[in-house]
C-alpha cells in the first residue's frame, strides 16, 4: 500500500503529460484541416462510437506528406545533415577523448570539467556565438582576409556548412564523454602486447584501440545523431532559407501555416523514423552493461 503512494504520483504525471499528449497528436494527425479555432475538425465523437470513427478514418495527411516534395525532401535532408555532422563530430571528438586519456591522471578531472562546462552553458548562446564568427563581415572572414588567404569574404553563415559547424560544436561533449570513458577502461597492456608482437603504433591503434572503444564510439554517435535529426535552433539561426530540416518544417507548419493536422502527421512520422536509432542505441547500451558485469 505504501509502495502505491510512491508509484502513483510519477506514474500518473507521466501518463497525463507524456502519454496522453501523444494520443492527441496521433488523433489530430488523422483529422481534417479547417479554418476554425482550433484549426481542425474532430472526427471522433462518443455518440457515434468507435466503430463509426474507425470506418471513416483516412490517412490523407500522411498521403499528403508523400505527395508534397517538401516533406520527404526535408526528412532526407535531415538524415543527411545529421549523418554528416555526426561523422564530423566523431572525427573531431575522438582525438580529444584519446588525448585526454594520455595526459597525466591528475589533469584529467580538470579536462573533464572543461568538456562538461560548455554543456551547462545555454545552447542558444553557444549557437549564437558562431553567428558573429561566420557572417560575411565576421571574425573568421576578417582573419582570413588579413592573412591574405582569400580576397573576397566567404559565405558560410546561412548555409549548410554553418549548420554542420553548429552541430559539431554544440554536441561535441556528447561524443567526447562516452568515448573517453571507453578508452579509460582500456587495458594498456593489450596495446603493449600488440607492439611487442610487431605491430607498429598506428597498426596497434587501428587493430586494438579502435575496436575496444567501439561501444563508446557507437554511444557517442547515437547521442549526437538522435537529437541532431530533430534539431530546430541550429538550422533556424545558422542555416539558410534552403536548409531543410524536419524540425524547422514542423515548427513552420504549426506556427506559420497553422496546419495542425499536417504538423501532427509530420511529428508522428519523425517519431517512427527515430524508433530505429533509439532501439539500436539501447541495444548498444545493454551490450556494454553486460560486458561490464
Amino acid at each position: 500500500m505504501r509502495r502505491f503512494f510512491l508509484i502513483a504520483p510519477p506514474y500518473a504525471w507521466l501518463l497525463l503529460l507524456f502519454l496522453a499528449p501523444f494520443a492527441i497528436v496521433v488523433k489530430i494527425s488523422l483529422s481534417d484541416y479547417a479554418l476554425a479555432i482550433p484549426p481542425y475538425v474532430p472526427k471522433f465523437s462518443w455518440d457515434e462510437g468507435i466503430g463509426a470513427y474507425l470506418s471513416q478514418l483516412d490517412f490523407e495527411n500522411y498521403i499528403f506528406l508523400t505527395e508534397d516534395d517538401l516533406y520527404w525532401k526535408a526528412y532526407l535532408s535531415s538524415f543527411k545533415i545529421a549523418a554528416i555532422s555526426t561523422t564530423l563530430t566523431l572525427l573531431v571528438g575522438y582525438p580529444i577523448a584519446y588525448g585526454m586519456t594520455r595526459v597525466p591522471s591528475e589533469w584529467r578531472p580538470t579536462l573533464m570539467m572543461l568538456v562538461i562546462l560548455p554543456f551547462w552553458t545555454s545552447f542558444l548562446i553557444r549557437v549564437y556565438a558562431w553567428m558573429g564568427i561566420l557572417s560575411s563581415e565576421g571574425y573568421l572572414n576578417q582573419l582570413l582576409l588579413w592573412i591574405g588567404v582569400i580576397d573576397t569574404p566567404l559565405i558560410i553563415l546561412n548555409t549548410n556548412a554553418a549548420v554542420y559547424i553548429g552541430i559539431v560544436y554544440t554536441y561535441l561533449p556528447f561524443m567526447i564523454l562516452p568515448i573517453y570513458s571507453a578508452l579509460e577502461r582500456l587495458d594498456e597492456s593489450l596495446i603493449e602486447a600488440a607492439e611487442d608482437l610487431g605491430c607498429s603504433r598506428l597498426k596497434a591503434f587501428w587493430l586494438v584501440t579502435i575496436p575496444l572503444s567501439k561501444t563508446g564510439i557507437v554511444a557517442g554517435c547515437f547521442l549526437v545523431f538522435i537529437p541532431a535529426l530533430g534539431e530546430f535552433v541550429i538550422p533556424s539561426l545558422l542555416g539558410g532559407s534552403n536548409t531543410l530540416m524536419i524540425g524547422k518544417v514542423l515548427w513552420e507548419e504549426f506556427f506559420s501555416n497553422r496546419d495542425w493536422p499536417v504538423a501532427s502527421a509530420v511529428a508522428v512520422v519523425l517519431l517512427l523514423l527515430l524508433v530505429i536509432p533509439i532501439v539500436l542505441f539501447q541495444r548498444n547500451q545493454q551490450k556494454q552493461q553486460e560486458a561490464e558485469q
Partner: protein
Amino acid sequence: MNKTSWFNVVSLTLGFAFLYIPMIILIIFSFNESKLVTVWAGFSTKWYGELMHNKAFLDAAWVTIKVAVFSSTIATVLGTMAAYVMVRGGRFRGRTLFSGMIYAPLVMPEVITGLSLLLLFIGIGLDRGVLTIVLAHGTFSMCYVSVVVSSRLVTFDRSLEEAALDLGCSPAEAFRLVTLPIIAPAVISGWLLAFTLSLDDLVIASFTTGPSATTLPIKIFSAMRLGVSPEINALSTIMIAIITVGVITASLVAKQQLVRQRREEQDAVRS
C-alpha cells in the same frame, strides 16, 4: 613517461581552442564600444548598463527564474520517487510502460514534446502561461532527475538500509535517516540539472507558452534572429559567468561531500 605525444598535445590544444574561442570572442565583444559587433572600437560597459534598463529582458528573466524554480522542484520530487521505485520497487504492474515513459523523453525531439503538450493543454482548455511551461518543464526534467538519482541508488550498499530496518526503523524513517542523506548529492545535482534545462529551453517553452508569459530564451531567440547585437553579447556574458561560477562551486561541494561520505562509510564498516 612518454605517453603524451606531440599529436595528443596538438589535438587537445586545438580541441579545447575550438570549444572555448567562440565563447571568449563573444565575451570580449560584449565590452565593445561600437554598435557593430564585429568591429572593435574601444572598451565600454555601456551595453551592460543598457541591459539593466531593458524592462522586457528583465521581465523575461524573472518569468524564466520562476518557471525554473517551480519546475525543477516538482521534477526533483517526482524524479526521485520514480528512481526509487525503479531501483528498489521490485516488480509491479505496468513497470515496463513506466520505465519506457521515463527514458523516452530523454531522446524525444523537443519539437514533438512541445507540440504534443500544447495540443493537450488546448484540448483540456488550460490557459497557457507560466503554469503550462512549469508543467511541461517538470515533465521532461523529471526524467533527467530520475536518471541521475537512480545511478546513485544502484551503486550504494543496500545493507545500510536493511540494517536500519533491522534496528527498528520504520521504512519511512530508514528512507529519511539513511537513504536520503546518501543520495542527497545526486538529488541536488538532479535539481541543478533540471534548473539549467529549464533556464535553457527555447522550443518547448515556445510551444507551451501564451501571450502572458515570455521566457528569456524566447526573448533572446527573437532578438538573435535579427542578427548579432552587443546587448545579446552582454546578456550572454552574464549568463555564462553565472553558470561557470555555479558549476565550479557545485563540483567542489560535490567533491567534498564525496570525500566525507566515503570516510563515513568506511568508519561505519570498521565499527
